[in-house]
């Protein structure tokens, strides 16, 4: 039998390690909820969006970081860069004759000293599109959420984005309350957004004659909104969520780059007007989503009903099915159907005769149309709980109002279908 001192470094090291094992494991046992890891999640996305017929294309890299500080305190930050380029419809309809327009950055319709004039001419029968469209956008989001007490979570955050002709800042606050053994969550939130519009070449005077080319300094708009929602665990494998959102915008809601054709009784172009939209808009929507796990397959099915004070009513049905292929691979087919009615002041064109309406727009986004999206996403697990995925989608938009009975417009496709292809490469990582 031996009893020796002093202890060797190895002895001390072993003592320290053993002591740490017993105290760490005791702590882990005492607080099993805290035993989970607190990782950093990084999501990197590269989105490519391309419309048919040489129209807009976008390349959008997005980096998003989510850091868990433990105790369900989460910081979430996203940085988005957008580059848009290509041709974008200016709102005028095709004509039998060539049509000439000025790019928005022009300060005069006709060349004169001290002014800038860039013109483009559209061939007969073609949809008038501004070929010089190019935009870069940088946007950042930052959100923080943390629990208050046992059953409540508060979240707040902000958003800022900037483009050459548009700046936006927004803030939001949300509160959620869990009850019924955390099977039910009630949420409520409010948000506020402030935007400044300073179009290339100045903001046009809304509703004014295009030939006068009247421009104004920058304009603003703001939005205030709210949300209430309930999330319910229906069964162990079924989660349902119902949300109602409401928002109210006011200010310069007009698109500074859109015009509308003015036609005579035969359908011949006599001029153009800048569009003019009401300076308030109220939107409401009801959103219902269900997530159902069918073994390793997850179905995500949602319906949204939207309605606004401009007369646009919309319905969206969206279905995604995530199929686990094993070996870390998954396949996700996606189908979406969308339909909207036109805004009250939407028209393909204005008539020269009769009183001019106060509000007018030929923006295809305010027209009645139906749209479908079909897509497929393939994912493969990578190291560090990661996933690499590729999404391919095809979007098709079919306006309901595409032709006119006017003699000059016979046979012209006034509001062509829009097709777009979406390719998205995403990489999710955890540290």
């Amino acid at each position, binding site marked *: 039998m031996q009893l020796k001192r002093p202890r060797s470094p*190895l002895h001390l090291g072993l*003592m320290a390690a053993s*002591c740490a094992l*017993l105290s760490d494991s005791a702590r882990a046992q005492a607080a099993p*909820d805290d035993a989970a890891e607190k*990782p950093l999640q990084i999501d990197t996305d590269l989105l490519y969006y391309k419309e048919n017929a040489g129209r807009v294309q976008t390349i959008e890299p997005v980096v998003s970081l989510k850091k868990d500080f433990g105790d369900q305190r989460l910081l979430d930050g996203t940085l988005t860069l957008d580059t848009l380029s290509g041709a974008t419809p200016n709102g005028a309809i095709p004509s039998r004759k060539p049509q000439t327009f000025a790019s928005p950055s022009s300060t005069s319709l006709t060349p004169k000293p001290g002014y800038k004039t860039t013109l483009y001419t559209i061939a007969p029968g073609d949809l008038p599109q501004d070929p010089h469209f190019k935009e870069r956008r940088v946007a950042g989001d930052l959100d923080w959420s943390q629990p208050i007490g046992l059953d409540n979570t508060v979240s707040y955050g902000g958003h800022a984005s900037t483009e050459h002709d548009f700046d936006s800042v927004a803030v939001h606050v949300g509160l959620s309350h869990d009850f019924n053994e955390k099977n039910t969550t009630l949420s409520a939130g409010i948000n506020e957004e402030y935007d400044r519009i300073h179009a290339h070449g100045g903001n046009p005077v809304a509703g004014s004659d295009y030939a006068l080319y009247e421009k104004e300094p920058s304009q603003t708009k703001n939005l205030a909104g709210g949300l209430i929602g309930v999330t319910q665990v229906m069964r162990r494998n079924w989660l349902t969520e119902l949300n109602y959102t409401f928002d109210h915008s006011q200010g310069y809601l007009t698109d500074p780059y859109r015009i509308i054709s003015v036609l005579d009784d035969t359908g011949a172009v006599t001029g153009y007007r800048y569009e003019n939209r009401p300076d308030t808009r109220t939107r409401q929507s009801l959103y219902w989503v269900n997530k159902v796990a069918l073994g390793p397959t997850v179905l995500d099915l949602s319906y949204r009903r939207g309605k606004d004070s401009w007369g646009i009513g919309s319905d969206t049905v969206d279905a995604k099915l995530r199929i686990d292929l094993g070996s870390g691979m998954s396949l996700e087919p996606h189908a979406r159907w969308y339909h909207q009615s036109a805004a009250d002041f939407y028209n393909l064109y204005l008539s020269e005769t009769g009183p001019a309406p106060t509000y007018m727009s030929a923006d295809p986004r305010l027209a009645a149309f139906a749209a479908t999206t079909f897509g497929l996403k393939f994912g493969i697990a990578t190291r*560090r709980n*990661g996933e690499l995925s590729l999404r391919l989608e095809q979007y098709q938009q079919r306006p309901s109002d595409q032709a006119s009975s006017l003699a000059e417009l016979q046979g012209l496709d006034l509001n062509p279908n829009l097709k777009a292809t979406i390719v998205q490469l995403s990489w999710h990582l955890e540290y």
Partner: protein
Amino acid sequence: MSAARAGAGGATPPPHAPEFEVVPREGGIVAVRFVAMASPCELLLETAETHTAHEMGRVAAQEAWRIESKYSRYRPGSIVSVINRSQGHAVVVDGETAALLDYAAQCHLLSDGRFDITSGVLRRCWRFDGSDRLPEPGAVAALLPLIGFEKVQWRASRITVPAGMEIDFGGIGKEYAVDRVLCLIAARFAGAALVNFGGDLAANRAPGTGPWQVGVERPGTEREARLLLELSRGGLATSGDTHRFLLRDGVRYGHILDVRTGWPVPQVPRSVTVAATSCVEAGMCATFAMLQGIGAEAFLEEQGFRYWCLR
């Protein structure tokens, strides 16, 4: 996402602790006996109340069962099995498993790589059944690339074990269970307690009648000579080569393997018993000593532990 997530509460199976028996002994001591981790387990309590003994017995058996089912490499649902099946993918582990992996990592470092929780793959070619069947040297060498804790990525709560490699908590698990059980008992029971799982033991303090009298079996001795020791507090653990050896051309090949060569450490003691502040510490020190082979006694002298070494 294929990375497995296991051991973090939630999916705990229903309690199914082993049956135990309560046997009063002389001197105001009650013994609780059960079988766990393929060992006879005993809990000695300084109490006259059998209902206290029943309560403590339930706590002890439950904890021993919990650790066994969570860390046994033979159970497909254990965290060890999940990690060993992960095929090179990261596995997120809970805090307790993280503490054990940290301990294994530190022991690997302290032993200059001799103690290694990835060495279990050598069992594929070594069977210590008392025969003379040595494995082919080529078969042993072929396993060496699958051994080495330094090849395992272990950071924060995430372990990535390269495909083909395995880990196990042999040499830690039972000793850990002894310390954990003692810890749980000491938090619920005011008297003296001794936990003994197949010869690995720990005590919180001596009973009023004097130190615990402990008989330690010394595996490897033909006479099965028991070592009679006195223990007041702390841990005591024994590492031995039992009957697990191969004998060929008069050379004895013990079951303590050198991870660097894949072959048994030559001239290991028949058994090493060490006393330390905890059972895990005693057990690891005994293992370290065995890994020294001929240098076991010198190693133990140098470290300053109380030890009993049998050649």
